């Protein structure tokens, strides 16, 4: 485990061990940008996978040769309503938070 972390550090510590010129810094920033973008992509992907599972359980009964129009409508509605639900939850949570702060 410790070895694993050591390896990671070696990988992400590019340049700081060498001269540390501005060109090196630029490159490190580039790599950090790529990592950040990959993290965002992974987060988005995780959300899509999560909603896919939720809506699959709601809309697909027995797998057949085609999804079918009805199921497709169910799936699109499911995604939209899931989104709406998260918004309502966030709002409600905010309300409760404010109430507990003032009260």
């Amino acid at each position: 485990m410790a070895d694993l972390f050591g390896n990671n550090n070696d990988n992400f510590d590019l340049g700081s061990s060498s001269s540390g010129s501005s060109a090196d810094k630029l490159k490190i920033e580039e790599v950090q940008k790529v990592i950040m973008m990959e993290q965002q992509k992974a987060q988005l992907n995780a959300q899509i996978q999560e909603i896919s599972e939720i809506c699959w359980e709601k809309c697909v009964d027995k797998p057949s040769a085609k999804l079918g129009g009805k199921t497709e409508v169910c799936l699109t509605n499911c995604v939209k309503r899931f989104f709406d639900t998260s918004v309502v939850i966030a709002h409600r949570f905010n309300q409760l938070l404010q109430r507990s702060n003032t009260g």
Partner: protein
Amino acid sequence: MDGSKMSQDELVDKLKQQVALENIELLLTKMSRLCFNKCVIKPGSSLDSSEQKCVSMCMDRYMETVSLVSKSFGERLLAESQNMH
């Protein structure tokens, strides 16, 4: 200098590859779980042909589901971001 640039590109490639591999692994695990639940109601002494057929179809339909969900999700995100501005 050129060598360090190479290793940096390689690092980025490796990172992307690892992320892609992990995504595939997650997808496979999830599909196994979901399709097992849908298709293998009572596990018997073997996976019979109707169960195998069900699992294959289940996987195809799930992949379609993911692409449909990601399309609606993307549309919704876009609409939301346009509302903000």
